[in-house]
């Protein structure tokens, strides 16, 4: 029987799923992803986690619990750092500990440290450590990782073309080139809105309350940080007085600054999670910059487990209307 590896559909799932899946399946494992977020999944997470935790971490607990009994392993790497001199967030550093000491009946945890803070050499060590659990053959592990990297690169290329993660995932799933058919995802819209936030907030349809779809229905084209080239992010983020040590934060600030300078962006929405530490700072830096420039309308939305859909819709509609009026009056 195949070994089943569970991956929670939360946090970095949206960023690295293709890599993880390819790696495990190449080694003969079966990958099981938790169900898409529902009220039930969120609620069980909210109950387990401490009140003070941010929404995404609470949700992560819920997805972990969803996998219990369905898998032999739970892939829960300690994501310390994915890029030199940066971290993700302190909570990612402690995530395996938080889960292990709070959730009962866990399957075997795969909780290697992924740490590229100093250099890249350690990464393969971690990969090998995980691979060994599924294959005794070092070459197979190496080959599986190489395949995984290739798939991940394709995924990122698709994202760079403006294709949203769930579409990109299904392109990969279908296994076709995909690039052409899907490269013209959004047309016939009169507005462009940049949506800035953590991938696990903006792409989780339950958490974001279908924000992207809603904007599209209102006639807006949506751009997200995933479509901004890394060099551009880097260049814009370098305008900060000091290097930002959260890589996701850097991406958000860098892409927000970039959107701010693009003539085709009509408005920027910052989606923050309740209780998120880095968001409170990156959001502030972005908001102040936007308000000083006064060129692009800006909306800051904070979501938590109690946020009502109606309130969000009202604010979105008002925002979009405002942008349209502005266009007319100019």
């Amino acid at each position: 029987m195949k070994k089943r590896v569970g991956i929670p559909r939360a946090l970095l799932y949206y960023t690295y799923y293709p890599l993880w899946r390819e790696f495990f399946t190449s080694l003969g494992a079966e990958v099981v992803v938790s169900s898409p977020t529902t009220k039930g999944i969120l609620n069980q997470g909210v109950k387990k986690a401490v009140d003070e935790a941010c929404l995404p971490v609470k949700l992560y607990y819920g997805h972990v619990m969803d996998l219990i009994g369905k898998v032999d392993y739970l892939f829960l790497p300690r994501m310390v750092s994915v890029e030199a001199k940066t971290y993700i967030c302190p909570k990612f550093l402690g995530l395996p500990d938080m889960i292990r000491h709070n959730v009962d009946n866990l399957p075997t945890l795969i909780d290697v440290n992924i740490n590229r803070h100093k250099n890249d050499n350690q990464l393969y060590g971690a990969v090998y450590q995980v691979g060994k659990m599924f294959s005794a053959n070092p070459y197979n592990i190496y080959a599986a990782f190489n395949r995984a990297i290739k798939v991940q690169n394709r995924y990122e290329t698709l994202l760079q073309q403006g294709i949203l993660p769930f579409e990109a995932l299904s392109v990969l799933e279908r296994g076709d080139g995909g690039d052409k058919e899907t490269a013209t995802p959004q047309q016939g819209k009169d507005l462009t809105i940049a949506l800035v936030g953590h991938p696990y907030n903006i792409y989780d349809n339950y958490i974001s309350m279908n924000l992207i779809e809603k904007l599209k229905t209102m006639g807006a084209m949506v751009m997200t940080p995933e479509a901004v080239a890394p060099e551009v992010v880097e260049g814009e983020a370098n305008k900060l007085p000091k290097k930002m040590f959260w890589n996701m934060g850097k991406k958000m600030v860098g892409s927000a600054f970039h959107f701010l300078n693009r003539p085709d962006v009509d408005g920027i929405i910052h989606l923050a999670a309740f209780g998120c530490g880095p968001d409170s700072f990156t959001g502030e830096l972005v908001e102040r910059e936007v308000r000083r420039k006064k060129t692009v309308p800006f909306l800051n939305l904070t979501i938590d487990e109690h946020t009502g859909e109606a309130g969000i819709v009202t604010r979105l509609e008002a925002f979009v209307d405002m942008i349209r009026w502005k266009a007319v009056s100019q």
Partner: protein
Amino acid sequence: MKVTFPHMGNMYICVKALLEDMGVEVVVPPQTSKRTISLGTRNSPEFACLPMKVNIGNFIEAHELGADTIIMAGGVGPCRFGYYAQVQREILKDLGYDYKMVVLEPPEKHISELLGNIRYVTGNKSWFRVIKALRLAWYKARALDELEVWVHRLRPREYQKGEADRVYGQAIRDIDQAKSCREVLGAAAKAGQKFGEIQADWTKKCLKIGLVGEIFVVLEPFANLNVEKHLGELGVEVERSIYLSEWINEHLFMGLLRKVKSSKEARKSARPYINHTVGGHGQDTIGHTVLYKQEGFDGVVQLAPFTCMPEIVAQSVLPKVSRDYNIPTLSLVVDEHAGEAGVMTRLEAFVDLLTRKAEGKEGVNL
């Protein structure tokens, strides 16, 4: 140039000594008050952590007194502290304040950045002068830490309530006034004698509670709603996991002095629960809890600012530590809305539980 800096408990005494000894003009911000916190909160991001907001309040109030330069510490992550200065600069800029900010932090590229920053404040004072000033600040920090150990022991034991705090208050002023290391030692000795004269019941067996958590709220009584004092009045002997001198060594001296042993030990004890640094004092919080149990303490109080990331990690595993080691813990999360009355009630209930547990009553489970 009029230099100010953020408040954190008694730290102002040390920083003031450091700067004034080098001939720098200093503006100590008014003691942190309700007004400070409300000014800070109004001008900071809603989900910023409390220390960051209080800093802003301090800077605004110091500006009212004419300060034009801020000196503060920084860091390289992962916790927000390392980015305080940069966000605060933007906030102050939008308020229309023309503050120059000097951030002491591990340099990004070269040590010369740090030296340059120090030089900005010290001017062309000789390094000898600088070292002499650092020494004075260090002596003051150590002396202040010692005073606190006294107060923690005396509060639950003195016959005449408030005496220890009176001596403490005077001693703080004396140390603040001291102009040389010698005078600091003199003030400390005098205080020691005064403390010794206080009539107290040294045979009394007090409950012992260890205080752990995020350093700012642990060291700043206004932010932690006087937790130490209230516990003392409830008859509890308090011990703190972090002292001012440790922070000064870490941030002002960049850890040049020997690493404090207890912190290393704590992190080691934390490993089975938090197996990696999580920034701030998250691991220390867990490790010290374990150590306090081993030293026979009755309970542990964790202090954390609302949304503090490292402490949330710690808070998440603390119940497990508490069960495994059979030591009651209480997590107090504070923000600008926290009220003293609410905290008092929770402390009383906690002390009550510890008392019953200590008396060996049945049915006291965690």
